[in-house]
């Protein structure tokens, strides 16, 4: 009797292990010449596409209209991550709530943190709002490594693109000239667009604005806007009546007429603040793909600047 049961148990163990092994089939990529890239956000996907051209397949985990702090680590992403050769992340703990389990469970050695296929774009960007002194959550969901919304500065876009060019070159040295040429073209186009954007924004230099979340410091610094307040009392903390009243007072004193809101936040509080202060709520897109028409990194700034310009003109 006991011997029989021992045998059954062993068989069960062996069978369940065998089940897994028997179903092994090569999931690793075929000799596909395109580099499979996954990015955390659409902006990084757009930059990777600019440099990689038709030598890469790029897909983003988060959608452009999604709050990048809160993405569900769905298993459907795991399959894509398991095949990726390069993973480009925003870093600075923006994705800390969802990316680490995806990376671990992807069981893809190429994209594990620190592996050659793990690319942290923040290493190439100019980072703002680095906390000094003690960091506590009394300040809300602060990012101790600096503000992670750095891609909204075209200069950072260019720096990241350079980093991506180097990385792709390292991965496919045969295509080095191709990537270099793509980068040069991107740089040239970005510089041209940059002139237009600066010209469009010049009349509004120094204007005071309020934003919902601290998503815009790099954008504001680059285009000369002055962010004087936030709808959120602290990063990641929903609006409170007391803070809203204070903000309304401040906006009236400072003559702030623009409230910049990300597409994933509720408009109720911003709208009521706008009614009190005769300001305008402008839903700006922090990421590529936030609207259908924003198909790449250039259109992102085109869209946001056009919307801002219109709002500035209407409120003055």
């Amino acid at each position: 009797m006991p011997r029989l049961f021992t045998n059954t148990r062993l068989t069960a163990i062996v069978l369940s292990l065998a089940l897994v092994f028997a179903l092994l089939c090569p999931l690793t990529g075929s000799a596909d010449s395109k580099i499979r890239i996954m990015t955390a956000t659409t902006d990084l996907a757009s930059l990777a596409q600019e440099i990689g051209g038709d030598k890469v397949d790029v897909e983003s985990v988060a959608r452009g209209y999604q709050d990048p702090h809160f993405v569900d680590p769905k298993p459907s992403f795991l399959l894509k991550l398991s095949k990726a050769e390069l993973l480009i992340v925003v870093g600075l703990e923006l994705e800390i709530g969802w990316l680490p389990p995806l990376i671990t469970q992807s069981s893809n050695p190429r994209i594990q943190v620190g592996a050659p296929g793990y690319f942290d774009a923040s290493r190439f960007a100019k980072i703002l709002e680095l906390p000094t002194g003690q960091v506590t959550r009394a300040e809300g969901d602060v990012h101790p490594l600096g503000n992670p919304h750095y891609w909204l500065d075209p200069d950072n876009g260019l720096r990241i693109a350079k980093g991506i060019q180097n990385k792709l070159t390292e991965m496919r040295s045969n295509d080095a000239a191709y990537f270099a040429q793509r980068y040069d073209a991107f740089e040239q186009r970005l510089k041209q667009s940059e002139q237009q954007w600066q010209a469009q924004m010049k009349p509004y230099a120094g204007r005071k604005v309020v934003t919902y979340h601290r998503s815009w410091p790099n954008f504001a610094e680059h285009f000369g806007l002055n962010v004087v307040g936030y709808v959120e009392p602290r990063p990641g903390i929903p609006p409170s009546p007391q803070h809203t009243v204070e903000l309304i007072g401040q906006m009236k004193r400072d003559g702030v007429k623009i409230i910049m809101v990300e597409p994933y936040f509720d408009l109720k509080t911003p709208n009521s603040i706008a009614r009190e202060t005769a300001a305008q709520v402008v839903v700006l897109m922090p990421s590529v793909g936030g609207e259908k028409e924003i198909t790449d990194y250039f259109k992102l700034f085109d869209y946001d600047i056009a919307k801002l310009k219109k709002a500035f003109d209407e409120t003055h």
Partner: protein
Amino acid sequence: MKRFAVLSALLLFSSIAHAQEAPSAPAKRDVSPANAEDARMKALEDQVRMLAGEVALLRSELKEFRESKSPEQLLPPQLLLASAHPQPGMLASVAAPAAPQTTQTQTFGGASGNAKLLNPDISLIGDFIGTAGRNTVSPSPSLQMHETEVGMQAIIDPYARADAFLSFGETGVNVEEAYITFTSLPAGLLLKVGKMRAAFGKVNTIHNHALPFIDRPLVTNNLVGGEDGIDDAGLSLSRFLPAPKNWFLEGTAQVFRGDSDDLFRAYRSQDLSVVGHLRAYRDLSESTNLDLGVSYSRGNSAGLQTASNPSAFFTNLYAADATLRWKPLRRAIYHSFLLRNEFFWSARDQLSPANFFQTQHAFGFYSNAEYRANRRWTLGGRFDRSGRATNASLTDTGFSGILTYWPSEFSQIRGQYRYGHLWDTPNDRFTNANEFLFQFLFVMGAHGAHPF
């Protein structure tokens, strides 16, 4: 290493230069009429100036050096962990950082001041529970610091990461989980070794503080061994399996020592327990998805008092789970809905009161719905029904209403009304239990990932 040596040499040198500068400063004020003294002073002053110039030069060199180092030096902490053994590919990209602009305000690549270097990510979660009302079958203390869980997570080396969760309860300390995960195995295999919550269904894998209710479902207590469920030392191997288009399939096989609460017990060292789990997932749309699973577990029945040969008594557990989630991406932080059902079948070998070998076949399930009404409030409900593993003819029933409030992402206040129609063994009858539970949760330290 070489860089660090050069850096520390530079630092040392500049501090020596500092130290030399400081004592010479008062010499300037110490004016003496003697010519010889004057000349000496002048010489000293010159020397001080020269040294100051040198310090300035060194400082600027050091600054340049730091800046050129910054891409590697200033990585987020977990990156630093992994780059302890830099790979050739990494260095190449490090050596080619961003455009070489060096204005004063420029900061490339995040903070170094806050970098905690090789420390693991540490978190602490406090779970306080209060209970009021009447429950004669399984009474809870009126107020209790139910659990204080310390979590430590880190990347161990380029091939593995590790997670450890120590739970300090009212009665002692328990290693809830502590395991290493090998992430770089061939053929897409993922191996975990250590003590872990078994991949048996959904609720068994979830830590107390991450549950959508304060207590565990009745079926967990009745059929899956109590609050901790199947939580044991062993090995776990999982892998994605080939699946039809748009489906995600994952298989997991686990072997444990065979000691799990009131469920399994290893009477001999070879009395191992096993767990097998198959998960199927599909996105129905961008905001809706379906998550299905079947699980199996087998081990030696625990709690046999009089059996002469306990290793011949087994408990076979089967489970099926189904979860439907809805979360619109544009309003993910405000609205979501989750519907989860888990079914459990238990076949437990034991001795009947008359000392005959018998197998009890018990069934239980719970059904849970959760709706996030806005950013701070979530409404939930749960229906419970479960037989008892040792006596399948006794079926406990219950339901709960749950209301959760989040002041922020890092604290949570929850209330739960719980009704139970439970078998009261000493009195040999069913009794009603009506209770109100409340819970305060707080999170310190590292921002853990949200379970999915």
